[in-house]
């Protein structure tokens, strides 16, 4: 299958390729199905996105696809957008807009189909396409056994390029695939996404992608393991290319010329050269040392054996190592190093020369305590220079506050200018002001408590941010909803009418229940509540009014207690006092008698009435459903849900099969975080739709409804029965650990102790430099290397102590003088 591709890649370097294809067209061509199939050439690969002609002309996917056109053409793969028009149907044209897919052909043979969400960005597109085409060249494995089998089969034959990437479709995966495109015939590429596998070969710090070179070719003894070299640089195409080049270079070269004149592939790749100086007499031993060093420095530096005896230029007598950096004109350094470890550390300390970084290769940095790891603080900080139209809200001060909230109905945001959460919310607040501009009777104001601390304290605001509503003559109401534009908007709009609103006629009541009366508010309150009372039911009315007040801002409530209330109660089959709940979506009105209910009961009933039986779960509403403390049954859907599934679930609900669960569904389009959830559950994005049961509150087990089964009532019921009987195994168990500090803190107490315990008379050889190598022999080297091996933290303390020794040393010196 791959033979047809070899012509494109054998011996072509990346640079060459870029030039070669430069002239090619690099925008996305749009074709009809017929036209498209007619352009397919035998053996040539092509990627096609089939979509409805009337679909939007732009989408995130199309943007990403457009970006992928050029790179894919560089690999000889054409890309097209195929518009499915009515007259020309093709079997590749999906039936619904949401079910459009991308197909990969070679010639006119279909190789693979991809759902668009697999190809989430340009990296994913290229990675997936190459992965499919290089099926034979790149072996995907999941166990250590697979790896050992491949290793054994290649011993004495070929070397292996083994890589671990966190997930398929990542930029690292793309880099590996691009390398495989070039080197796939020379080396056996092996790929895994299993952390366990990487761990079992002894890798540390697995957060990042890893690229290994297994030297199997020279292994003749089958019981012997292949040597492995880990690429130290981040996984990026150019780094891999450079790394492989150094792997191909000879391990050790013997030279007898001026080190300044020697040139190897390493220098061209920006790597330093290390010459081990040798003499005839010790040649054998030196060679062994040099080989050892060469293995250690493989991929980091070129190692050469320099024969002093046959050398024409002079090198200093005692020098045993010559070091040459890759920069042109960098002086050759002659060193006396008595430990091979020092050679290694010398090189490793110098490798900052050129990292050939393509992207931000931040992942390699060790966690630094000074780095912001609070996402809110971080985004707010990044945003700090963006000018917000703050003038859309009224800034209140100690002087203006009282007058303002008395004069007009106001929303007040209390925030602190230095607090990230406040400032993040302030942006939502400003967005709200933009939305409401000129339409609201409610004045949007803000108080910066960093400036008006006393005012905030007086308003009982001691944490931030806090939103309060001041309506004339009433106690301020604290807003307790989500800190976001939408929810606050709802709160403000619903507060425009009183809670509960007084209905005065039967006709008005009917309008209220039908949603006509407050038409514009219905989108924000899916239910309207109406309390029906005889005029003499004072206590019940009072309780209802209290409940209505409590629920203000989250639902519309009304009260009707005219003489003719019986007309309504009769119509809706209610006995007084009663609650009527009008569900506007379903167009239903249900009635609940509530003779002896307390205020809390009314609130509870209404709150429960707001819950849907099979809701779309979102970031905003999840907490409400979590309160039910039941395991969630979640249907993950990429886009809106198939009505068939809704029907299935609702039937199950109706038959009371789902009483112990909270059924819901999640739309990945509306809630992209769902993708992360799926990845946690399944490790990779599984095909959708998909049903899971998540037992969040006891045990954390996640069960997946078998994807090969159709989502029908029977299948689901059977599966749920098995679940209940404990016959199903969870696909994963959610971690139950507490959240620990992400990073350590400075241990000032130990630093103070260390400083206090240092003896001031000790003289610290701070300035002993390595100028006189010959005299300061081994001992000092030992000192140095022990220091180097210490963790950074202790080094820091050392540093402080040192400065302290000096201070105190000074002091004691003066003191002595005085006494003399």
């Amino acid at each position, binding site marked *: 299958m791959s033979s047809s591709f070899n012509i494109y890649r054998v011996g072509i370097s990346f640079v060459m390729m870029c030039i070669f294809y430069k002239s090619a067209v690099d925008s996305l061509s749009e074709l009809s199905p017929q036209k498209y199939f007619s352009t397919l050439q035998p053996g040539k690969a092509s990627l096609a996105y089939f979509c409805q002609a009337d679909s939007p002309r732009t989408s995130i996917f199309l943007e990403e696809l457009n970006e992928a056109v050029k790179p894919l053409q560089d690999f000889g793969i054409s890309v097209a957008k195929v518009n499915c028009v009515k007259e020309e149907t093709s079997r590749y044209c999906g039936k619904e807009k949401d079910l459009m897919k991308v197909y990969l052909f070679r010639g006119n043979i279909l190789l693979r189909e991809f759902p668009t969400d697999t190809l989430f960005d340009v990296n994913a597109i290229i990675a997936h396409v190459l992965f499919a085409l290089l099926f034979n060249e790149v072996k995907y494995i999941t166990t250590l056994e697979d790896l050992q089998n491949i290793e054994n089969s290649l011993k004495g034959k070929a070397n292996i390029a083994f890589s671990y990437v966190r*997930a398929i479709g*990542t930029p690292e995966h793309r880099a590996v695939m691009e390398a495989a495109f070039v080197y796939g015939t020379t080396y056996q590429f092996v790929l895994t996404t299993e952390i366990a596998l990487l761990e079992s070969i002894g890798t540390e710090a697995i957060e990042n992608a890893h690229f290994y070179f297994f030297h199997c070719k020279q292994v003749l003894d089958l019981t012997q393991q292949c040597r492995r070299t880990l690429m130290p640089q981040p996984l990026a195409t150019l780094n891999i290319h450079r790394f492989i080049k150094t792997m191909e270079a000879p391990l050790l070269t013997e030279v007898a010329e001026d080190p300044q004149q020697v040139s190897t592939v390493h220098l061209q790749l920006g790597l330093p050269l290390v010459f081990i100086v040798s003499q005839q007499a010790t040649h054998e031993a030196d060679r062994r040392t040099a080989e050892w060093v060469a293995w250690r420095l493989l991929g980091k530096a070129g190692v050469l054996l320099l024969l002093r005896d046959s050398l024409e230029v002079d090198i200093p007598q005692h020098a045993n190592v010559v070091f040459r950096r890759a920069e042109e004109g960098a002086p050759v350094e002659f060193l006396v190093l008595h430990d091979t470890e020092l050679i290694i550390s010398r090189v490793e300390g110098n490798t900052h020369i050129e990292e050939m970084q393509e992207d*931000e290769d931040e992942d390699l940095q060790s966690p630094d305590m000074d*780095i912001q790891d609070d996402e809110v603080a971080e985004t707010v900080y990044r945003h700090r220079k963006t000018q917000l139209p703050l003038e859309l809200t009224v800034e209140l001060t100690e002087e203006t506050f009282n007058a303002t909230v008395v004069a007009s109905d106001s929303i007040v945001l209390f925030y602190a200018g*230095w607090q990230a959460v406040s400032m993040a919310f302030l942006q*939502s607040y400003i967005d709200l002001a933009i939305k409401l501009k000129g339409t609201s009777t409610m004045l949007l104001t803000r108080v910066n408590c960093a400036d008006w601390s006393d005012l905030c304290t007086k308003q009982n605001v001691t944490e931030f941010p806090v939103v309060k509503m001041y309506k004339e003559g009433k106690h301020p109401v604290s807003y307790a909803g989500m800190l976001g534009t939408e*929810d606050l908007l709802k709160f403000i709009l619903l507060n425009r009418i009183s809670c509960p609103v007084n209905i005065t006629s039967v006709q008005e009541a009917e309008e209220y229940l039908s949603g006509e009366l407050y038409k514009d508010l219905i989108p924000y309150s899916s239910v309207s509540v109406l309390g029906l009372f005889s005029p003499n039911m004072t206590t019940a009315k009072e309780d209802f009014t209290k409940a209505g007040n409590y629920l203000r801002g989250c639902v519309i409530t009304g009260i009707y207690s005219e003489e003719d209330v019986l007309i309504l109660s009769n119509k809706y089959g209610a006995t007084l006092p009663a609650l009527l709940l009008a569900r506007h979506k379903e167009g239903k009105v249900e009635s609940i008698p509530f003779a002896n209910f307390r205020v809390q009961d009314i609130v509870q009933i209404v709150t429960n009435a707001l819950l849907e039986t099979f809701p779309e779960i979102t970031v905003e509403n999840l907490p409400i459903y979590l309160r039910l403390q039941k395991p969630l049954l979640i249907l993950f859907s990429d886009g809106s849900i198939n009505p068939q599934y809704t029907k299935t679930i609702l039937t199950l609900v109706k038959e009371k099969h789902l009483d112990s669960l909270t059924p819901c569904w999640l739309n990945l389009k509306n809630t992209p975080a769902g993708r992360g959830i799926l*990845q946690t559950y399944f490790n990779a994005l599984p095909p959708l739709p998909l049903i899971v049961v998540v037992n969040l509150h006891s045990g954390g087990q996640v069960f997946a409804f078998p994807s090969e089964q159709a989502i029908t009532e029977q299948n689901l019921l059977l599966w749920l029965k098995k679940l209940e009987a404990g016959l199903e195994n969870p696909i994963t168990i959610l971690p139950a650990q*507490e959240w620990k500090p992400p990073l350590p803190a400075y241990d000032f107490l130990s630093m103070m102790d260390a400083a206090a315990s240092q003896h001031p008379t000790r003289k610290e050889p701070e300035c002993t430099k390595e100028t006189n190598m010959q005299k300061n022999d081994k001992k000092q080297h030992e000192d140095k290397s022990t220091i180097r091996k210490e963790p950074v933290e202790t080094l820091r303390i050392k540093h402080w102590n040192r400065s302290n020794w000096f201070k105190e040393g000074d002091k004691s010196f003066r003191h002595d003088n005085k006494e003399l």
Partner: protein
Amino acid sequence: MSLLAAMAYFLQRAGRDYAVFERAPRPGSFFTRYPRHRKLISINKRHTGKANAEFNLRHDWNSLLSHDPRLLFRHYSSAYFPDAGDMVRYLDDFADRLGLHVLYNTTIAHVTLNKDRQAWNGHYFILTDQMGHAHRCSVLLVATGLSVPNQVDFPGSEYTEGYESVSVDPKDFEGQNVLILGRGNSAFETAENILGVTNFIHMLSRSRVRLSWATHYVGDLRAINNGLLDTYQLKSLDGLLESDLTDLAIVKDREGKFRVTLKFFLEEGNQSADAITLPQDDNDNFAMRVAYDRVIRCLGWNFDFSIFDKSLRLSSGGEFSKKYPLVKASYESKGSRGLFVLGTASHSVDYRKSAGGFIHGFRYTARAVHRLLEHRHHGVAWPSTEHPVSQLTSSIIRRINEASGLYQMFGVLADVVLLKENATAFEYLEELPVQMLAQLETITGRRARHGLFVIIMEYGRNFSGPDKDVFFHDRSVGHTEDAWQSNFLHPVIYYYRHLPTEQEVRFRPADWALPRPTAIHHIVEDFLTDWTAPVGHILPLRRFLENCLDTDLRSFYAESCFLFALTHQKLPPFCQQGYLRTQGLVGTESLRRHGAERRFPQDYATVGRRREDGAQGPEGGPLAPGPLLLQPHDSNKEEL
């Protein structure tokens, strides 16, 4: 009186039964006479560029605490060093406007103690005024200040004039040789007034000069009074000398001028004035061989113990000086329960350390004593606010940036955070006398069973002192990891797993304001005293709190909480206390875009991966340390 006004305000607001006795017909009688040269050295900083009233009190050394913004001293004087007359006017208004219950023209002549089991403290205090009327009270607050001029007894002391009565008219000193005894602000204030008209001024005292900018103690010599140092060092005839006054003697010569000699010479024999041996007779270059026209005594003040009956056991001789009565860290007399010494006289608690002897310090200690009494006698627990732990970092940041009590009474008053069980919530208590930490539960009525944080302001350990060079190179610290070496006033947070015992407080290490904590955090000193830098100040504090409490105190957007809620059994406190209570932080489109730049989809993948290997736990979060544009704080040293 200024102090009693401060205290009376709190009693008045709490509706307590109290009376203030004032000797004079109006409040602030001290300021009608003192300082003699009428210039207060407490600063009246009217502008700070900030609106925050609490913060501004950090730089207003004259106002008393009240709810009435009109009663701020800046409305009474525009001078940076205001006139004492303005203070009198201010105190008048303060007592008047707030309707304080003051009995003027009442001099308490005698105080005694009357045992009575019914009384709160087992005894009543009986105060007898000049008319012979007796007044009975359960709690006695003494704020008489230091009213007795300090007299040093040596031969010839009768020739000296006291600061309290010496002329303030420079004309009276024209062309004179003046010797001033003492080295406090009153001595320098007197010198400053006549510096330009005298032949020269010599200033004699036992100890070396203590400059307040070196000692960081506002009671030491302030720059506004130090003209004499300048003329001394420039050899303009004025000079400073050190000697123990009790060894000296002053004799009057034939011309009526004063000669300095040693007491020792006087004892040699009963000689006539002219025959007394002078030091220069042996030692002909003796420094004070010149004759003086005047000798002025500016030796400070003592507490008036005379009106207190012995039964009160109000003894003098605090740790540092005999001029203050002995009181506990709660300002209660060690001798009798219920007797509190406040104001300048209570300075023994923080003498030469903090500002407790001055208005800008004792206005806070008065409040602390009031709170303590409220709890002791009225069952009102020390005021506190309770918050979820997700608010902990913010609560501390807020206080260290505005609290004036912590700032003025550094090292003496401290805020305390009392953790609730499992550290999910905490109580915040403001401005406790920190030496009373061990007795916290009894004096506040709050429980400290689950660990606590103490927030206090400190100068560097070895930074302050009369002989310290406070301008040395490299004096300021900019790196967060060097914060513990900060020299200038900066916040320090102590963490204790258990409330320290009295023993631990008493036998704490030298130079420590508090006993050794479980962990300590210094917030790096700041040139602007603005500790709100996200990475330089807030982040290290958060890491410290997190590690003390072994939890994750980061804030998260609702979307992250959503992800955690469905992928972890437990949630970080911020999500638990916000998102799960439907108060999640949604964030805006543009903020989310910033998040997206940090490659959120991948980070979601990371979360999944991490979960798998178990050991990593949830700490990975969606925000593994990533590429930030924030620069780690580098040298932001003072380069001015």
